[in-house]
């Protein structure tokens, strides 16, 4: 489960962490991705695993468009840039929920049959559900990919450089908007990947994102903004803490464990575990 939280958080780590833009519509991005896999399954009988790249591609376009149409202007705001970002993306989240309810109806949906759904591998008495196992593998691959992308390619360095000093970057001829639009697209595509995996074992309805959004924020912040590895570690810690808390406290309090660990970490290290911002 921890790696899945990590997978949901990795897209956010890119947008929220590396570009330092708040995205309060992250949960809704996830919701859209899950609906997309559901409809690909319902109408074309494409298994969520196969459709994952399609969903990711669609989300890439969606993320880039959201950046170009909304976030670009929110970042340009002369006053209260932080608040403008928070509330622009928050407003977007409400609109997305409303639109989902309008077009998809509030019915709960779920993908009943898939290659992975409900299958379990049992190793020495420990049950490993296949969808979550695949989710975990995809998650590790996504993190590794992103890590290499950020630290080894020119484009990745450009994203980081643009955040740190847009002016200087413009001098070397990098267009900030193109870099960030690509970053948003990539972040959303990663959410799309997470959504496709999630759709296998989670139910889908317009408000589904809300359950995951806060955990994703906490995961990214726990690991520290600006660090891909941090988000990965954050995801694992969150998963472990949740499991342990549920054993010690009544399960309805298990999130309290996650939140307390977050508070504890930032009190000791105000920039999260591996944060650079």
């Amino acid at each position, binding site marked *: 489960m921890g790696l899945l939280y990590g997978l949901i958080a990795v897209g956010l780590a890119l947008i929220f962490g590396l570009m330092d833009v708040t995205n309060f519509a992250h949960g809704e991005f996830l919701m859209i991705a899950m609906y997309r896999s559901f409809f690909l399954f319902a109408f074309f009988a494409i298994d969520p695993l196969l459709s994952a790249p399609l969903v990711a591609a669609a989300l890439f376009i969606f993320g880039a468009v959201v950046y170009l149409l909304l976030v670009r202007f929110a970042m340009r705001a002369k006053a209260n840039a932080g608040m403008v970002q928070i509330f622009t993306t928050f407003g977007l989240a409400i609109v997305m929920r409303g639109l989902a309810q309008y077009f998809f109806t509030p019915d*709960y949906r779920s993908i009943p049959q898939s290659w992975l759904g409900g299958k*379990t591998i*049992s190793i020495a008495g420990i049950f490993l*559900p296949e969808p979550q196992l695949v989710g975990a593998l995809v998650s590790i691959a996504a993190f590794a990919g992103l890590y290499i992308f950020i630290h080894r390619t020119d484009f990745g360095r450009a994203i980081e450089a643009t955040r740190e000093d847009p002016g200087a970057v413009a001098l070397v001829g990098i267009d900030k908007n193109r870099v960030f639009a690509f970053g948003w697209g990539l972040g959303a595509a990663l959410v799309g990947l997470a959504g496709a995996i999630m759709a296998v074992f989670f139910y889908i309805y317009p408000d589904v994102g809300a359950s995951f959004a806060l955990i994703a924020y906490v995961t990214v912040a726990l690991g520290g903004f600006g660090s891909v590895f941090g988000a990965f570690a954050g995801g694992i810690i969150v998963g472990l803490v*949740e499991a342990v808390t549920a054993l010690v406290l009544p*399960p*309805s*309090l298990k999130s309290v464990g996650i939140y307390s660990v977050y508070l504890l970490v930032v009190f000791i290290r105000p920039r999260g575990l591996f944060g650079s911002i």
Partner: protein
Amino acid sequence: MTITRRDVLLGAAATAALVPLAARAQTSEVVIGVIYPFSGGSAQQGVDAQKAYETALEVINKDSAFDLPLAKGEGLPGLGGAKVRLVFADHQADPQKGRAEAERLITQEKVCAIIGTYQSAVAVTVSQICERYQVPFVSADNSSPSLHRRGLKYYFRAAPHDEMYSAAMFDFFDAMKKKGTKIDTLSLFHEDTIFGTDSGNAQAKIAGERGYKIVTDIKYRANSPSLSAEVQQLKTANADVLMPSSYTTDGILLVKTMAELGYKPNAIVAQDAGFSEKALYDAVGDKLEGVISRGTFSLDLAQKRPMVGKINDMFKAKSGKDFNDLTSRQFMGLIILADAINRAKSIDGEKIRDALAATDIPGDQTIMPWKRVKFDEMGQNNDADPVLLQYVGGKFVTIFPPQAAIAEAIWPMK
């Protein structure tokens, strides 16, 4: 679906045109407020409820041959054939908004009664406002036992509450035990809302009284992103019966997680809610062969009472779904309320209240397996017998109590 709705509208327009002018002149409208969540996490229930009420409205306002109160003839004869009109309001699962909407419906829309609300927390505030304005409130589908024990004069509930449901489950266990089935230990699994807490408390209380051992009592956070840790505990406890009280979302996740972690209990006896929703069975029905849920409604009744099937078809034409435990209670709630208004021959709140208090409808004039509808001094109908249903081969069959059952329980479940 759009075609059917248009047909209905055309039909309504045509009937309206046929009513003689003189009759129409003296009829007034009877306005009833309907308060549900139409947006947010439980919007689906609100939208389904809307369809159920529209079905009931059709039965009341149009001439039909069903053996239900008010089915024959058009409108309310006690008020010169007045038509019932519904005003829908959205409470968004927020007690404050429910309260504000109730007040708005009473003062601005001039409703003479209110029906609702799905969420018990909202029923608390809506019924308080109704009490203050002396307007009857019919709690169609709230099942919290605490609701009718607040000494409200204008509160009525025709359907059973969770203690009645839980008692039926334990009656069933007792009967199974007599036949030699081993049922000693129970696992309770309930969400942390009013519904879940009430249900869990009722089950724990009755289990104690009748000598069943509760090995785990798990309260979990509603709409959790993951239930793995909880299911792991259920698996370790491995009780004879798992008793979940969950809504659709958590129900789906529970069943999926159980399958993933390889937990297969001998029996699941569910406190309705999510376990009577079509969405849940669409999603994970294949893993639920043999699950037992309590209910107030069963389509099996159509074999004995054909009108149940016909009314269900009317509802299905609107919503694309069969009646379930919630929508059937909503349908029945409006019929009972309209019947009382008809007998009160008035839209005055106090008179309707008195008429509701005097309600006595025999069970076979309902679509439910109830003995009858008659309210006690707290506004609760104690003759609404719950039934237990088992999900077999893609549909529900009634297995308990014996007088309503059409099949023997399959135990353990597959």
